[in-house]
């Protein structure tokens, strides 16, 4: 800058241009060569923000000073003359009487003379200089006796409103002058060379709400301005994480939803996806069951895929983590839908700073072949320099089942059994005297349910100084399940470090380690408890669990209490997720970043059923142990360039490469027939029969390169272009490379003059994006022909065989999702109301489908890219600040509508039973049909009960094809599990030290296929039923032996699963500082006590345990099924959180 100024001055001097001008521009404090007594025209160098001194440059050729004006003054007071100059020139001129003699008479007559010349003429002897600021204002500043510039200083301290400690690295700016300073570690700052006069000083720092204060600067004096900043960024100031970087929300061109740490901490969730429930529009979260450690089905803007995974990509601090349990566990547990502990439950939600959800193609395309289902970016907490804080919190909760089903008691049951037998022309089983003695019998639901405690402890230490910040945390969680024999506990530890090694080099790491352990409920327990005859007791004569013969079925009784407590079904999991990174600034604005990530998951699953309990009863004990270890590493290098061109344009370029590899090794063994159950699963070596040993070792790898360009034009027109090339080992040889581009445009309409003049919008941004993402989440070897192993016994010995197991498909490639999104972000009423609305239309083609191949080939199916699915929808999110002041009230509402439709299934227009569910007669209500959404149900339509001559009623179904018979072709679509719309409403009230927050959440229009109900209303006389069977009801047949097998898939069991749920209500009280001091807890800076309730009310018509279920959460083909699913709980929590 200095060099340029000197050159300019030399040129000017040489040119000797007409009007009286300042000569060389040099550092004012060092003295200036005066060419004449006239005023100098000076400007502060743009961007200079160093306390040490201000660079002044010559501004005499600024456009505003060259403007020609015409003046005619005779004896006009100087003040008037100056204001006329200002008006005619379109220049804002500030001056004070202390600086210029405003009454001095001026005589000047000139036409088309430059402003600069006029000012020079009228101010010739005034002894002032003219300072031009970057916003186009000019100030008249008195020159000191030595010709030095008279300037003042602004000093002060920036502190945090809560901790009262100084905030380092806050930027304090004197508006309009381009002068600024950064606060030191203790928060103090000093800005020198401020032109005297009134100014506005502004303090800002990321993570805090900026604040402005007025000050009048006096020459040669310090003017003190202190700031107390509140740590809460406004919606616009918010910096959100986007793929491979961060962006200010005001400049986002894509659709991104955010969930903050406060929202996550509002309810004691055990796993982070539960905190997304009802918080972000377009994100549907359905917890699969109430089991501790159960996963949740998360769908962003509807499910795209049929055979491939539908879960979004989870990225924690830039590390994409493994969430696919099919590879990472050996599947040794004895469960129906749940393959293992939820892999996301290994993360402590208290460690999370914010969660961003990338919903549209522009935001997600940078993740290429993994971004089709959306991306969930999780940023964990970092320390803040200058603040060393310790936080500690703990909570205790009581959980219970929301409701129990109305089942028959022993007397009603016995009567029903007798009726069933009589109706089948068989003698009744129970004599009347027996029935009289039965009473209520055993309440099996009562026997397995319990009120269970949930305990959590969390401690964290964070802080740092100018160069180093750290965040260390530890937590413990113990969650007993509301069904006996199920629980989960987790301990976790985190260490996040950021260090600035030098001005150009920054390094850091994120590390978390956790160990979880869970007892998973063996699969048939809930169903067995529901169907168990209340005439049988839990324990037999000797106090042992009754597992004798059930006279009704002729087989051993599967005692649910015995199964729950005696069967070992446990998983122990160790998880380490970490990354280490380095950032180097090659040049101003050019940064190189290198990251090495590691995700290590080790899971051990034990199952043992002793010989006293089914299914171990039939094999004299059976057990298996499986251990799997998944190591996935990622090596990423990015180069990032940002540049601002004046105030008009900004450019942000990013390019990078990624290498990722996932290796799993597993071993599992199963044995049965043991001499003793005493060793349990540790005694597998002593089994008389070895069932098998399996040693899977899947692996996959991915190599990619990506680039993103963000270009901002006049900060109003924002363009984004991204592209990524992925090469995956999973795809066929002929289609290894995938290109995923996207483009987006955003228009900051509120920065346009005409919108500003309307005055309605504080912020208005319109954006549109279109792009392509892919889905590579299929098995590892699906494109290859593989052989499978077989066993056959010849002459008393096992013979192993190898046979063709799968057909090769070298054409296999990723699924492609093309998404179009258009959205509006608006803030009105002084930012008190902000609205975000999006419309999207996404089409997924080349759908990976297990296409049926003719079975005469010897194969059942082949994975092919055929078919397409469309999701179209609308999202709305409204945040309002209703009241500020003594009583504060904020509301947040989000709504989402999504229409899913299958467009093409290849050669078929319908695929029946793509996924077998349930058991017994209910195995094929799933269907895929062109023109219908995924997750549709298929079956017969119930017509009425038909009574035969003996008065026995059976359900009859409609003959839809009119052929006079009710056959398989009379089936039709009877509903589907996708909701019409979902939403959440959150209200937060603050009054003094109290805080009340309420979260409501709803899902409307989704249907549930209640297989459990079909088993409980079959009236087959061998299992306990709902009381409805005794009283009769729609579709309920007359009890008769054999009915159970006649039950079929029909709309009798399709129920409306819509619900409105009070998800969380929380009342918290923060103890005032004075009180803390009074009880000698001075060290404690805050202490908050709270009481909260989760699932505190539910409004639904669903007759099962809970409408929020999905037994088969891992597949996209079978959502909305209730098959003895572990019920959700409601709980009440007491806790506190404290900080030092």
């Amino acid at each position: 800058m200095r060099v340029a100024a000197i050159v300019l001055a030399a040129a000017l001097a040489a040119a000797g241009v007409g009007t009286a001008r300042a000569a060389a521009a040099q550092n004012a404090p060092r003295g200036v060569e005066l060419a004449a007594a006239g005023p100098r025209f000076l400007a502060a160098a743009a961007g200079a923000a160093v306390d040490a001194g201000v660079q002044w440059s010559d501004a005499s050729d600024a456009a505003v000073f060259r403007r020609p004006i015409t003046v005619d003054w005779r004896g006009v007071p100087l003040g008037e003359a100056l204001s006329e100059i200002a008006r005619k020139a379109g220049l804002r001129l500030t001056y004070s009487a202390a600086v210029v003699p405003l009454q001095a008479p001026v005589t000047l007559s000139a036409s088309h003379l430059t402003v600069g010349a006029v000012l020079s003429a009228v101010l010739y002897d005034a002894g002032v200089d003219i300072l031009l600021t970057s916003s186009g204002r000019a100030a008249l500043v008195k020159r000191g006796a030595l010709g030095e510039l008279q300037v003042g200083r602004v000093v002060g301290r920036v502190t945090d409103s809560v901790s009262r400690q100084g905030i380092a690295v806050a930027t304090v700016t004197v508006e309009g002058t381009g002068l600024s300073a950064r606060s030191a570690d203790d928060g103090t700052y000093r800005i020198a060379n401020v032109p005297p006069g009134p100014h506005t000083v502004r303090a800002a720092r990321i993570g805090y709400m900026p604040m402005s204060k007025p000050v009048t600067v006096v020459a040669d004096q310090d003017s003190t301005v202190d700031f107390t900043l509140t740590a809460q960024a406004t919606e616009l100031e918010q910096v959100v994480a986007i793929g491979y970087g961060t962006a200010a929300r005001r400049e986002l061109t894509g659709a991104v939803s955010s969930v903050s740490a406060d929202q996550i901490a509002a309810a004691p969730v055990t796993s982070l996806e539960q905190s997304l429930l009802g918080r972000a529009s377009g994100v549907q979260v359905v917890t699969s069951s109430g089991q501790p450690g159960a996963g949740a089905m998360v769908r962003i803007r509807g499910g795209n895929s049929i055979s491939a995974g539908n879960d979004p990509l989870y990225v924690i601090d830039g590390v994409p983590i493994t969430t696919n349990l099919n590879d990472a566990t050996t599947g040794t547990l004895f469960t129906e839908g749940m393959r293992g502990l939820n892999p996301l439950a290994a993360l402590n939600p208290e460690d999370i700073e914010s969660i961003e959800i990338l919903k549209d193609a522009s935001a997600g395309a940078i993740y290429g072949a993994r971004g089709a289902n959306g991306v969930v970016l999780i940023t964990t907490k970092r320390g803040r320099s200058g603040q060393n804080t310790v936080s500690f919190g703990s909570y205790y909760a009581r959980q219970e089942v929301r409701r129990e089903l109305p089942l028959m008691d022993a007397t009603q049951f016995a009567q029903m059994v007798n009726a069933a037998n009589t109706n089948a022309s068989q003698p009744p089983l129970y004599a009347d005297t027996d029935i009289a003695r039965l009473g209520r019998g055993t309440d099996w639901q009562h026997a397995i349910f319990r009120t269970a405690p949930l305990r959590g402890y969390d401690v964290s230490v964070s802080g740092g100084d100018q160069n180093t910040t750290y965040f260390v945390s530890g937590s413990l969680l113990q969650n007993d399940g509301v069904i006996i024999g199920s629980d989960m506990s987790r301990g976790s530890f985190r260490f996040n470090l950021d260090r600035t090694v030098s001005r150009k080099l920054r390094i850091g790491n994120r590390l978390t380690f956790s160990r979880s352990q869970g007892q998973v409920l063996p699969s048939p327990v809930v169903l067995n408890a529901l169907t168990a005859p209340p005439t049988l007791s839990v324990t037999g004569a000797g106090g042992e669990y009754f597992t004798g013969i059930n006279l009704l079925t002729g087989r051993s009784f599967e005692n649910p209490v015995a199964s729950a407590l005696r069967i070992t079904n446990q998983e122990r999991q160790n998880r380490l997720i970490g990354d280490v990174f380095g950032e180097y600034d090659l040049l101003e604005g050019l940064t190189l970043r290198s990251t090495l990530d590691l995700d290590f998951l080790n899971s051990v699953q034990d199952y043992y059923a002793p010989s006293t309990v089914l299914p171990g009863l039939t094999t004299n004990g059976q057990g298996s142990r499986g251990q799997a270890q998944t190591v996935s590493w990622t090596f990423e290098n990015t180069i990032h360039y940002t540049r601002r061109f004046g105030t008009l344009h900004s450019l942000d370029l990013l390019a990078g490469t990624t290498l990722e590899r996932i290796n799993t090794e597993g071993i599992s063994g199963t044995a049965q027939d043991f001499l003793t159950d005493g060793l349990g699963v540790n005694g597998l070596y002593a089994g008389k029969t070895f069932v098998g040993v399996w040693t899977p070792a899947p692996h996959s790898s991915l190599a990619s390169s990506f680039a993103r360009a963000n270009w901002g034009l006049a900060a109003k027109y924002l363009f984004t272009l991204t592209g990524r090339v992925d090469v995956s080992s999973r795809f066929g040889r002929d289609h290894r490379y995938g290109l995923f581009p996207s483009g987006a445009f955003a228009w900051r309409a509120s920065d346009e003059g005409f919108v500003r003049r309307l005055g309605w919008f504080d912020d208005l941004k319109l954006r549109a994006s279109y792009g392509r993402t892919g889905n590579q989440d299929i098995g590892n070897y699906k494109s290859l022909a593989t052989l499978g192993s077989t066993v056959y016994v010849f002459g008393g010995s096992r013979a192993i065989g190898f046979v063709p197991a799968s057909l090769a498909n070298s054409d296999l490639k990723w699924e492609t999702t093309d998404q179009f999104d258009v959205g509006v972000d608006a803030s009105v009423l002084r930012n008190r109301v902000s609205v975000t609305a999006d419309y999207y239309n996404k089409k997924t083609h080349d759908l990976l489908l297990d296409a049926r191949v003719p079975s005469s080939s010897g194969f059942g199916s082949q994975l092919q890219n055929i078919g397409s699915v469309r999701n179209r929808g609308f999202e709305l999110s409204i945040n309002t600040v209703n009241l500020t002041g003594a009583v504060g009230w904020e509301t947040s509402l989000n709504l989402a509508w999504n229409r899913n439709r299958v467009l093409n299934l290849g050669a078929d227009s319908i695929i029946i039973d793509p996924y077998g569910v349930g058991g017994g007669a209910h195995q094929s209500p799933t269907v895929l049909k062109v023109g219908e959404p995924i997750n549709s149900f298929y079956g017969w339509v119930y017509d009425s009960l038909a009574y035969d001559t003996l008065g026995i009623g059976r359900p009859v179904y409609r003959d839809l094809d009119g052929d006079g018979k009710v056959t398989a072709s009379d089936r039709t679509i009877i509903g589907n599990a996708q909701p019409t719309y979902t939403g959440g409403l959150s209200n937060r009230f603050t009054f003094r030290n109290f805080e009340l927050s309420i979260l409501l959440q709803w899902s409307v229009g989704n249907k549930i296929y209640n297989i459990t109900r079909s088993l409980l209303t079959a009236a087959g006389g061998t299992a306990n039923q709902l009381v409805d069977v005794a009283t009769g009801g729609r579709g309920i047949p007359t009890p008769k032996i054999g009915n159970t097998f006649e039950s079929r898939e029909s709309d009798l069991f399709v129920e409306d699963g819509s619900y409105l749920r009070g998800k969380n209500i929380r009342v918290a009280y923060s103890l005032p500082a004075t009180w803390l001091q009074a009880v000698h807890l001075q060290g404690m800076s805050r202490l908050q006590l709270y009481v909260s309730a989760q699932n505190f009310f539910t409004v639904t018509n669903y007759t099962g345990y809970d409408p929020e279920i999905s037994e088969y959460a891992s597949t996209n083909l079978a959502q909305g099924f209730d098959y003895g699913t572990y019920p959700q709980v409601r709980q009440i929590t007491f806790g506190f959180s404290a900080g030092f």
Partner: protein
Amino acid sequence: MQRTKLLSMLGGLTVLALAASCDSFLDPSPSDVLAPETFYKTSSDALAAVNGVYEQVKWSYWLGFWYVSDVATDDILASAKFGSDGHRMSDYIFDATEWPIGDIWGNAYRTINRANAVLDRVPAITMDPALRTRLLGEAHFLRALAYFNLVRCFGDVPLLEHEVTSVKGLAVSRTPLAQVYALIVSDLQEAATALPPAYSGSDVGRATSGAAQALLAKAYLTEQDWLKAAQTAGAIITSGHYVLLANWKDNFRIALKLANSESIFEINYDGILDPGAGSIHTLFSLPMG
């Protein structure tokens, strides 16, 4: 400047290193699953391939076949406790969507594809010619067995004589009955000469020449070729290899399975050595008394 140079050098090296290892890095070959390209090389591979065909025959007779061959006949009358599918079979009012139908079809064609894999690939393996002849004979026999079950249930069925490696160009139209029988007969004639009359030790249970002849006789009989049927059956009787047991009940004694003189060919279900494959017919088909 020096630092920049150093960095750019490192960057270049990394890129080179990556480029070099790229191919092996992205190699999709599984380390825990076999691929046909690396298999079918030795005699034990050939043996394993044939063992696999037997395994599929095991499943063919597991349950679905019983529904068709017993339940749908007068041998069984469905009681009140039998499931609705059993009732439909027993009353002969089932349709094509009944699960045993698809079960028979699928199992048979899986057997055929596995046998075809053996017949296509084993001849190229360098191995003991006698063993190869026997293994191919076993494959012929099992393929003929599968086709025989198919034609008896369905009549004209697609005729596939080679392993299916791609769905493109798959023949799915029904071949006339006579042609299928022609293959069955030629397969069994081939097997009758290739297979040994008996096995010992851990090979007991494999197909024998007598089994091939017996099946051939049955095929002729079903085709109503009385002369050939009588001739073939006669040959088996006169071979002296098979003798009726003194007590017919001994046919059902586990201790005598596979090893009694009446047994021509048996599918072996062994719940101990092959857990999960113990026959469930012990639940359904025990003799009374």
